[in-house]
């Protein structure tokens, strides 16, 4: 078997092992359950409110949007934070010291982040379907759209997340990603229709993947008629694919360059220097 195939398999098994570990670890379990519970509670209280201009439940409209947000969050934030943490603690350096270890590492992180995101999506979707009768996953098209949006969403966000993770010097700087993320979520029509926002904010939000992921998920789960409250009275599938595809291409072009540069700089002393810094912060 060729070394690359061996490394790819090792990466897959590493991803699986780490995904399993994420279910037995208090910190990651909290990461799965806390946002899910909060979102479900919010939507539960929004269930009586109506989407402006319709008789449709705002809670039911919010659920698919939060699925899109979850995908974006997984691809961008989870990827970036895993990368910064594992660079600091030396995991990445171990991969570098192993033949084809970096390739295996990359495969494992794609597996892990996709798995974690999928789990988060399922955790929201299943109770959501029980909570809101208006949501329908009863056609093959709906399932395909859901799977397609998820797939394109991961490809669009994970490489960009990896770029951010490589550029951040340490895990304590995650706020540099979290704050703009929060801002984008607030303006991307996740919790309230984007058409209520001023025009320039709508324009800004439509540059980033979060809005499109929310829109894509809504198109999968909401009745056709709900397209009427969206920009252009349409689900805009082509535009969704174009914008997310653009992010995917940009990420896939940039990520290898930035990741390689970051990996090249890793050495025992750079890890030791970061440890020193982190220790100083602790004491």
């Amino acid at each position, binding site marked *: *078997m*060729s*070394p690359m195939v*061996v*490394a790819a*398999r*090792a990466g897959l*098994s*590493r991803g699986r*092992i*780490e995904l399993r*570990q994420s279910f037995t*670890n208090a910190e990651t379990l909290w990461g799965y359950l806390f946002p899910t519970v909060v979102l479900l509670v919010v939507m539960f209280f929004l269930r009586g409110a109506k989407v402006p201009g319709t008789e449709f439940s705002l809670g039911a409209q919010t659920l698919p949007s939060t699925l899109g947000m979850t995908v974006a969050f997984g691809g961008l934030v989870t990827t970036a934070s895993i990368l910064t943490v*594992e660079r600091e*603690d*030396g*995991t990445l*350096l*171990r991969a*570098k*010291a*192993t*033949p*084809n*270890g970096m390739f*295996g590492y990359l495969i494992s992180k794609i597996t892990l982040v996709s798995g974690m995101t999928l789990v988060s999506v399922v955790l929201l979707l299943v109770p959501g379907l029980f909570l809101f009768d208006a949501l329908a996953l009863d056609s093959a098209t709906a399932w395909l759209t859901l799977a397609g949006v998820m797939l394109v969403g991961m490809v669009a966000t994970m490489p960009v997340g990896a770029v951010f993770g490589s550029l951040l010097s340490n895990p304590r700087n995650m706020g540099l990603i979290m704050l703009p993320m929060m801002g984008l979520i607030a303006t991307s029509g996740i919790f309230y229709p984007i058409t209520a926002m001023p025009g320039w904010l709508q324009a800004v939000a439509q540059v980033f993947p979060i809005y499109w992921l929310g829109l894509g998920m809504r198109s999968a789960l909401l009745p056709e008629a709900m397209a009427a409250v969206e920009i252009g009275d349409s689900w805009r599938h082509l535009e969704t694919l174009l914008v997310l595809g653009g992010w995917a291409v940009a990420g896939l072009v940039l990520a290898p360059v930035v990741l390689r540069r970051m990996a090249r700089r*890793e*050495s*025992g*002393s750079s*890890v*030791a220097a970061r*440890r020193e810094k982190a220790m100083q912060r602790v004491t």
Partner: protein
Amino acid sequence: MVVSAGAETPTSTGSSTDRGTTLDVHDLRMRYGSTDVLTGVSFRARRGEVLALLGPNGAGKTTTIEILEGFRMRSGGRVEVLGTDPARGDERWRSRLGVVLQSWRDHGRWRVRELLAHLGSYYAPYSTERTSRPWDVDELIQVVGLTEHADKKVGQLSGGQRRRVDVAIGIVGRPEVLFLDEPTAGFDPAARREFHDLVHRLTDIDDTTILLTTHDLDEAEKLADRILILAGGRIIASGSADELSRRISADAEVRWSRGGTRFVHSTGDATGFVRELFAQHGEDVADLEVRRASLEDTYMTLVRDHESGRADGVTRAFEEVAR
């Protein structure tokens, strides 16, 4: 024997054809900005040899080892590890190396056996007729003495046990060259002793070349066939612990005072010097003291002076001794 830059001038450039040579470093230079960290390091190592790179903090030990590991680009000089320039080493070359990194808290959620099996799997395609890779996991765990802890999580191990995991990771691919950077930093004496036993066991099992860095003279003496003393960016002395100590203690320090002024002189022939001294100054000589320096004394002086920024003088003295 390599003493310092320029002391060894290899006549043949094709050292890699020399089958016994696993490490070949000639005139290695490293400069960060305007600071020279390495100013011409040269040494060689043969298959199965254990080399200790000894020197005070900041002497350039880690820089040297990281260049050899292929983790850091050098500014100048020639380096070959297993016949390959580390700056251009491919994955096959990497599969023949073992690197024991300083651990911190990576892979804390992994179980020991699980982690070793995983990291070992990358080496399987690089098996050769001579060397079957990777090491059988249970056998490896036994060699490093972790059998009882094989199913524990790495994060739950003690410092010494955790270090054994690091060593096991370093050797899981049955390396031909093993790099150990400060392997016992932060160890208590018992853990240190156990670690030394482990290294001895390793050199018994495989014909592995080991290059380790340490600032502990005692450790270098216990583990290494050959000690290289690195200071001021150069190797200022090298040899077995025995050779070094014999050569350095051949030199004695003569102290005396004359007319209230104190004098110090280093000489290889203390008796002759003192005879001469009395012949010249007779009764004026007072407070005479002749002292042979032990290896540790001399090394400690070197370290102290280096740290207080007066390295050059001592380095020169050391070189004189070594010559």
